Every structure is written in structure tokens, then in C-alpha cells.
């Protein structure tokens, strides 16, 4: 039997030994083990803050979407006062799923099994045939609402946790919040989703995707090499891609909680900007005008100035955070995404990697724009994001074809004893006048941020229950 008070698997292996802090190795077994997966549901997905969507998905009273916190399905709904609630989609009567749709508007949610009904805030309305009191005489009506998670909105993003008395979202984001603010809270109207998220299943353990989301920059050179071969990234012939190393030099940031972002100047990555030699001569102010951050236009710059410190603005001018992740399962993709016609309006996307058993993950992909963007720009940003990320995206289709192989390898009697190696550390190095906190790594992107992700994973998985 699995002893959950001490994090030890039934064969006697201690979880903490699966992540070797001396040699910085992570056992492949973590990508396939069923006991580990069950522990993750309790210790991570029932404990940390999880991203469930954006409030612009449910603008009106009664609007709802159905999402997942680990394996637990929840209803994300807006009540008449405008507050957002996150409710376990499990009827307290017989355990039936209450809401059967994926999205909609309903003044109440009535279970189709016996008819128990609930308001958008989760409170119990009653069971049919009131005079017979079919909710019984054991529990008062006030006790029979849908189980509610703790909710916090941040830049319109809906986060929830089952850890009712745990750290606030702000505490959970820690030193990385300064950087996330630059992406999510930078205009008067804020972000809006351009539609419901793409969803698809990848036959891989969720951590194969999640550990990459912790700012794995290095894989771009090889796995996404087609970007250089087609002339979108880099300034090199196919033969000297490694020497040229586009997208590798910048400043990676992370923090104790495993979140991370890669702050990369546009001209380090994209061929189109590499050839703009005048960029180097511009002051940050001028640079913002010539090359606004992804998703931002010149016209929106006054808004940016209102929402950011001068230091934050300088960072957005020189090296905006473009990719990264939020522990445990969020990928952030806010990229310039120039097109072959020489234009760029950026692509803004967030993904969650929702566990679907040890061997599958549901890839959820939301596409965003600033509310104040023009309809044409929003249309263009949707197309940019769909062409590069998510289901058919020419970048991410290579990722989703890679992770399943890692998972498969982790199932073998020998394969599961092999390790993933995080031996290449850059070490903390903060550029002079760097505006933000956290762990800062200036230079060639290495394993630091991903290793921090695993250290936080290890901390949660081995914490005293």
C-alpha cells in the first residue's frame, strides 16, 4: 500500500530519491508511474493555483464554461453580481455530473439525474417535489451546494485552487509576478480571448509538456530547426544554425515556485528583425515606437506607460518576456511572430496541459489580443497564433509529436530507471540595472529554469501532508 503520510511508493522508493539534487537527474519513472500520478493529483492539482480560463469567456450573468483542475471537472460561472465562481461539477446527491455542456448560459444548473438544482454561485436551490423534501433531513440546504474552489482573477485570467487557506495567488506567483504583470496587466481594457480554446489530446504524461514549458529554450535549435530552415528564425544557412544560435541569448528569469519566462530581444530570434541593424542604435523610447512588444501597437503605447513602471517599460522595449511557463501546467507564448509578408502583429497564447491519466494530457490553447486592438489586428493575431501554435501550429506540432516518445520510454522496465539530465546550468547573473527580481540568468539559455521547476515539484511532492 502507498503510504501517503511519507511520500514513499509501494516498492519502497522514496519520491525525493527520484529527483537527485546532487547530480540534477530526474527519474524517467516520474513520467509513467501510476502511484506518482495519484499523488500529483492530491499534492499538486488539489493544492496549487490553476489557470482555468479568462473572464472574457463568461462576460454575462449566468455564463459558464466547464474546465478541469487535474482530473476534477469544474464549472466556471458568473453570477448575477458579476462574481466568478468555480464549482466542482459533481452533484452532492448521487455524484452525477451536473453540467453537461462545455459552454453556455444558464440561470441555474439542474442535474439531469434527479433534478437537484444549483445557482451560478453553487448554492443549492432545491430538489423537485419540495413538499417531500427529497434533499433529506440530514443536511440543511445551505450545506448541499456544489463544492466551491477558491477563486482569484489576475489580469482577467481565472485562477482557482482547492487550497482554501493556502498562499494567495500573488504569493504563489512570487518574484515572477513583476514579469507576468508586463504581459497580462498592461492596457486599460486588458486582454480578451479571441474565442474558446483549442483542445486536443497528446498521448504523453503531462510533465513531458510541463517541464518544457519551464522555459526550455535550447530545444528550439533542434526540434524547431525548420523555423531556421524556412528563414523565419536566425540569419544563417542551414549548415551554420548551431553557430548562429537564434533565440538562445537573452535573460531567463524564474523563481522558487518554478515559474519562468525568457526575455529575448526580437533581433536575437527572428530573421526579419536581425537584419534591422538600426534597432541597436535606438533608445528604449525610440525602440518601443519602431518595434512595440508582441500584441501592442504604437497607438497603445500611452496605455503601456500608464500601466508599467519606467523600468518595466524599458524591459518591454528591449527584451520582452516572450515564452515561459507558470507552475504546474501553463505555457506562456507572447511572441512577435513576424510573417513572410514582412508584417507582424504578434501571437499571444496561453496553454494548459491538463492531466488525463499518467499517459495522456489534454492540450488547451487560448488565443488572446488586447481588447483595444483593432478588429483587423485581432483577426491577424488569431491567424498568426493558429498557424504557429496549438493544433496545427508549425512550431508546436513538433512538440506534440515528441512528448509521447518520452512517455513511452518511461514505461519500460529499464527505460523507467533512466534519467532526464539537467546538468547544464548557467548560474544566476543579473545584468546591471535589471528591473525585476527572482532568479535571473543572463546569457545562453540553459537548464536553470527547468531545474527550478523540478525542485518545486519535488518540494510539493515530498511536503509533509
Amino acid at each position: 500500500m502507498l503510504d501517503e503520510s511519507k511520500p514513499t511508493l509501494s516498492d519502497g522508493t522514496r519520491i525525493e530519491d527520484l529527483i537527485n539534487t546532487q547530480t540534477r537527474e530526474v527519474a524517467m519513472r516520474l513520467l509513467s508511474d501510476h502511484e506518482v500520478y495519484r499523488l500529483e493529483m492530491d499534492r499538486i492539482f488539489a493544492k496549487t493555483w490553476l489557470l482555468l480560463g479568462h473572464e472574457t469567456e463568461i462576460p454575462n450573468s449566468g455564463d459558464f464554461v466547464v474546465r478541469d483542475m487535474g482530473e476534477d471537472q469544474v464549472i466556471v460561472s458568473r453570477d448575477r453580481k458579476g462574481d466568478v465562481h468555480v464549482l466542482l461539477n459533481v452533484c452532492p446527491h448521487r455524484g452525477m455530473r451536473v453540467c453537461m455542456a462545455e459552454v453556455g448560459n444558464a440561470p441555474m444548473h439542474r442535474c439531469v439525474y434527479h433534478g437537484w438544482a444549483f445557482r451560478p454561485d453553487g448554492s443549492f436551490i432545491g430538489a423537485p417535489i419540495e413538499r417531500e423534501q427529497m434533499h433529506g433531513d440530514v443536511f440543511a440546504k445551505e450545506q448541499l451546494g456544489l463544492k466551491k474552489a477558491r477563486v482569484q482573477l489576475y489580469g482577467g485570467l481565472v485562477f482557482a485552487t482547492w487550497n482554501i487557506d493556502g498562499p494567495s495567488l500573488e504569493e504563489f506567483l512570487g518574484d515572477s509576478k513583476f514579469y507576468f504583470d508586463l504581459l497580462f496587466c498592461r492596457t486599460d481594457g486588458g486582454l480578451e480571448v479571441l474565442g474558446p480554446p483549442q483542445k486536443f489530446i497528446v498521448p504523453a504524461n503531462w510533465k513531458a509538456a510541463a517541464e518544457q514549458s519551464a522555459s526550455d529554450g535550447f530545444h528550439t535549435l533542434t526540434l524547431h530547426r525548420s523555423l531556421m530552415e524556412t528563414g523565419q528564425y536566425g540569419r544563417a544557412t542551414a549548415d551554420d544554425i548551431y553557430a548562429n544560435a537564434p533565440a538562445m541569448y537573452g535573460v531567463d528569469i524564474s523563481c522558487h515556485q518554478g515559474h519562468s519566462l525568457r526575455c529575448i530581444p526580437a533581433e536575437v530570434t527572428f530573421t526579419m528583425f536581425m537584419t534591422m541593424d538600426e534597432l541597436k542604435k535606438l533608445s528604449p523610447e525610440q525602440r518601443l515606437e519602431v518595434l512595440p512588444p508582441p500584441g501592442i501597437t504604437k497607438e497603445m503605447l500611452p496605455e503601456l506607460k500608464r500601466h508599467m513602471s519606467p523600468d518595466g517599460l524599458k524591459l518591454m522595449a528591449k527584451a520582452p518576456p516572450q515564452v515561459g511557463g507558470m507552475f504546474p501546467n501553463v505555457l506562456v507564448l507572447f511572441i512577435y511572430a513576424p510573417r513572410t509578408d514582412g508584417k507582424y502583429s504578434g501571437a499571444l497564447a496561453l496553454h494548459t496541459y491538463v492531466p488525463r491519466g499518467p499517459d495522456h494530457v489534454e492540450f488547451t490553447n487560448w488565443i488572446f489580443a488586447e481588447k483595444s486592438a483593432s478588429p483587423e489586428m485581432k483577426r491577424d493575431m488569431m491567424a498568426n497564433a493558429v498557424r504557429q501554435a496549438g493544433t496545427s501550429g508549425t512550431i508546436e506540432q513538433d512538440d506534440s509529436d515528441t512528448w509521447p516518445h518520452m512517455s513511452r520510454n518511461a514505461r519500460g522496465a529499464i527505460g523507467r530507471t533512466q534519467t532526464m539530465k539537467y546538468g547544464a546550468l548557467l548560474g544566476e547573473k543579473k545584468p546591471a540595472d535589471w528591473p525585476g527580481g527572482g532568479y535571473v540568468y543572463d546569457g545562453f539559455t540553459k537548464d536553470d529554469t527547468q531545474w527550478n521547476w523540478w525542485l518545486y515539484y519535488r518540494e510539493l511532492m515530498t511536503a509533509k501532508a
Partner: protein
Amino acid sequence: MTTATASRGMERIDPLPVTGKRIATGSALYNEVLEFIYDEAALLDEQKFDAWAQILAEDISYTAPLRITRQGADRLNTIVRTTLHFDDDYSSLMGRLQRLGTKSAWAEDPPSRTRRLVTNLRVWETAKPDELEAHSYLLLSRSRYEQSQLQIMSCVRYDLLRRSGPGAFKLARREIILDQSVLGMANLAVFL
């Protein structure tokens, strides 16, 4: 359908409105379209992408809306055209083909073995004499690596074909209506 729903891009399952005269199944024109559809499926299954590019019109719109599960009065509003799985025009399709031709398009190298089973073809005239509306069902099976279980994708395709010569058409529009709200394939690195 309420205005709020429509403005958020959730639309009815009904096919694109067809106003023209139905082209009789088995007629000479119908058979011409059927041959085009069969030949196109073969080009993609045989990965003859240069030849496939030749049958795409330069003003092509190639899209795949999301599908979504809804209940009650809105239950048939399951097509979402705000977010798409494919959102391509001619130049972006050429970009996809260019990538497939590189040395590092790993999602399809090694390539999938695919079979496009096209059925239920229905053809209509349109307001333009040189254009036909052709709707077909597609069942795509995809085999990758050593996996013995086929990946399956089912959809209906709303095509607009434009006459480009005797016995020849170009694909001027393809809208792919998938049947899954959560796709069972890890990517759409293949065309539908």
C-alpha cells in the same frame, strides 16, 4: 440563437447555405467533381505536395472551426468560427508546404501513413457559372511509427471548386467541420 451567442461566434451545425441547383449524382459534371476529390485525396495520401499545391486557388481560404458541446436551446450551435484549428490562406499553406520540404519537419518525418476515405459527395451550382459547391465526408486514418492503433479524424468538408480548364478545378475554399470538440490527434500536421 441569441445575439450574444452569435456575436461570440457559436453557430448552428447547418452546412453553409446552398442556393444553387443540385448536380445529379452520377451525372457527367458530378463525376468530374468526384474524380477531382478522389485525385486530391490520393495526392495527399501519397504526399505529392507539389502537385497538391497546383490545385489550390491563390485566393483559397482553408479553415477548420472548433466544435463545442452545448445543451438545451443552443444545442445545435456547435460550430465555433472565432477560434480555428486551421486558419490558412494561400501564402500560409505554401509556408506549411515549404516547412514540410525542410530537413527538420519532425511532426511528419518520419511521415504518417494516411488514408483519406471520401464519401457522401453532394454538388451544387453556385451563383457563379465557373464555381461549384461540393460537400464531402472525410474519414482520415493516420498511422505513425509502430503504433498499431490508427488515429482517426472524421469531418465534413465544404469545398468551393473553381473551373480552371477542361476537366480541371482549383480548390477555392475548404471549410473542415470536425466532429470532435477535443481532438483525438496530437496535432494536425496533415491536411484534411
